[in-house]
């Protein structure tokens, strides 16, 4: 007898786009982890000052940046920051969003009211503004960005989960579980959250680009991750200055960001379809 996960895995494998997305994502993650092994140069060393701004060549695959650093190495190292920001934020948004959404949706009443007010507070304050303020207080940087992204990312997940759980709470199968003596937590964990997998994955996948974009936006406003740590957002922002001629400085980090998010969303969609058995006829 095969386990449900085995079937989910088979469903996943049969979705070509998802497999490609997953593979690209895996490659990106491996690249981030093994960055020192696959990059020819130190990403922070200004070893090619005389060739600064050189276009892509056999030696410098993505060219050289304005400070004489090998751009390929920087892109690879940049994935470390961008991926961690994206994924930590997404992870946090799920870690915060799911329980809160589940609580609000399942118990309703006063708990729901309180959680909805918290959500309102977070929907009213633009993340960028909070990031600017917080950046000014905490000296900004990596931690602040992750913090802000997580702080604001969960709202969407929470709302989606809440709506889904509210809809499912009245379903007979929840009653059935109650009749069997299941505790609310058990019901939330075993029934309601699996049934909310689709909004959770959507929320997770959406919060990754949001966090990465936040990083880029903050770089634009000058409160991003401080140099020389390479991040894609910072590189895109610097690349804009050079877009007229030295296009490679803007194109490569933007493409890296886009590819990561595209891969993530294809992978996420595939995952969702695979984990939701009822969708498989489509």
């Amino acid at each position, binding site marked *: 007898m095969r386990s449900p996960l085995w079937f989910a895995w088979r469903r996943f494998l049969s979705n070509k786009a998802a497999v490609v997305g997953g593979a690209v994502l895996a490659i990106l993650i491996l690249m981030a982890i093994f960055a020192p092994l696959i990059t020819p140069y130190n990403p*922070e*060393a*200004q070893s090619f*000052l*005389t060739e*600064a*701004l050189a276009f892509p060549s056999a030696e410098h695959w993505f060219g050289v940046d*304005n*400070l*004489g650093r090998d751009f390929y190495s920087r892109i690879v190292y940049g994935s470390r920051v961008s991926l961690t920001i994206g994924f930590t934020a997404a992870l946090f948004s799920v870690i915060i969003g799911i329980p809160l959404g589940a609580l609000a949706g399942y118990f309703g009443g006063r708990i729901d009211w309180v959680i909805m007010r918290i959500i309102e507070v977070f929907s009213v304050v633009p993340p960028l503004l909070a990031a600017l303020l917080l950046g*000014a207080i905490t*000296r*900004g940087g990596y931690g602040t960005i992750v913090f802000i992204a997580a702080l604001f990312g969960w709202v969407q997940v929470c709302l989606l989960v809440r709506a889904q759980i509210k809809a499912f709470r009245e379903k007979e199968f929840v009653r059935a579980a109650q009749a069997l003596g299941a505790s609310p937590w058990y019901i939330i964990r075993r029934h309601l959250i699996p049934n909310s997998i689709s909004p959770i994955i959507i929320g997770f996948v959406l919060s990754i680009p949001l966090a990465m974009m936040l990083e880029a936006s903050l770089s634009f406003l*000058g*409160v991003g991750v*401080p*140099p*020389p740590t390479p991040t894609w957002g910072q590189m895109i922002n610097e690349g*804009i*200055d*050079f*877009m*007229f*001629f*030295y296009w490679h*400085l803007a194109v490569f980090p933007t493409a890296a960001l886009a590819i990561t998010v595209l891969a993530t969303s294809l992978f996420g969609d595939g995952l969702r379809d695979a984990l939701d058995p009822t969708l498989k006829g489509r």
Partner: protein
Amino acid sequence: QTTVVAPSGSTAGTYMDYMKTVYDRGTGSELLQIPIATFDKEFELTPMAAESWTQSEDGLTWTFKLRSGLVWSDGEPLTAEDFVFALQRAATSGYDFAWYWDFAGGIKGWKEVTEGTADVSTLGLKAVDDLTIEVTTVAPKPYFPSVTSLWYPVPKHKVDELGDDWALDVSTIVSSGPFEIESWEKSNNSVVLTKSDTYTGPWSPMIDRLELDPTLNAPEVGLPAFLAGDADYSFLNTGQVPVATARYPDGIRKNAVFATSYISYDLDAAPFNDVNVRRAFYYAVDRDELTSTVLKDIAIPAGSILPPGYPGYNPDIAAEAVFDPEKAKQFLADAGFPNGEGFPDVEIWYREEGGYNGAIVPAMAQYLQAEFKEVLGISLNIRALPGPEWMDGLRGKKNNIFIAPYEYDYLDPSNFYGIFYNGGRHGYFVPEYDEIIAKADSESDWDTRYKLYGEAEQLMIDQGLIVPLVHPVTIAVVSDQLTGDGVQPNSLGFTQLDRLGHYFFTHITKQ
């Protein structure tokens, strides 16, 4: 009708009154008024509102004779009273540039009045008659006339009527200079000026309308607008220079700013309380490589706080600033950090800003970071702060090392040396230095003065008070439709563009 669209200063401005606020002024507020004197493109001081000036025997009193027939745009005559009133108000109303008139102008009683310990009537300022102004300084100020390039009149009759609010709205703003205001978009501080038809002073504009738009100031925005025909010139960042040069080979202009970027420290805090550490930093910078590669010639190496061509510039002292890794290492070792071992992690703070500093400082900071790591073996973190916080940090000594930019306010060495004098903006208290500067400032013999400033500079180097880094150069592309003296390079090959606003905007025409 000719309209010139030009990039300009800051996107936020409160009062259209230079004598009310400098840092928060409305765009073009200086073009609206006529200063006592100003500079032309060769940096010759040219009388504007004044016709002539004389210095008294003891060197303490300057008398300015105003041109007759100058009027405000509402028809009221422009009198000496308006000039005197401008400074009297500045001394008493919390003018954010008030320090200038103490530090550069040295006007008698200024300090006491601004601090509220003396009455405004004790100021060394007097309108003798409608066309004569008398200024008394605490010490002889041989360069005082160049200080007056930032002395604009304030319409006393308007202030009497409306208070400071006269400068808030286009309908109540009056001008005395070559331009009048037509509109002012406050959200981005852009203005439209028109040629004044009441102005009778020197340098009458050759264009009819002038749109000054600060949002064009960032080259990323300015150049596309320029290329699309929406602006008449634009500043360039390093990445844009090749495109612009290719497309407009004759339109490229270089603009040597009288400005310097340098490293300053908290002299009292470890590790920079050790002169050896400071000297190590001085020798660890390869300025030539910095400017030629990283900055792509949008700056030139700085060996002195004074930029080349600036009065008092001393090439010999500047030549001392060489890149000498061995010396640098030696100094650091002497300080007890051989090869950087044991050196604490430090964070260098720079100010976020646009303009030419925005173009060079971040890249330069990263360059220094790499360089100090390589040469000295120390790690330097970088932090960019918004203006007020950076200033707060500098003044409150909240950090121990900064990249500081400074651009001249008036054309005299005392300007640059004054920023380290007796506290100044860095909280430096170096008695030997202060002594030399005090002497030099009031010395009326120009050769002796320059010699004294040279001594001060040498002391700065020996004490490692600062590390001069670069002097910014701005590069701009100018449309071929823009002609006139204003866009022609001066004898040194530079065009100052809007840095010399009065000269530039009155010396251009457009086809």
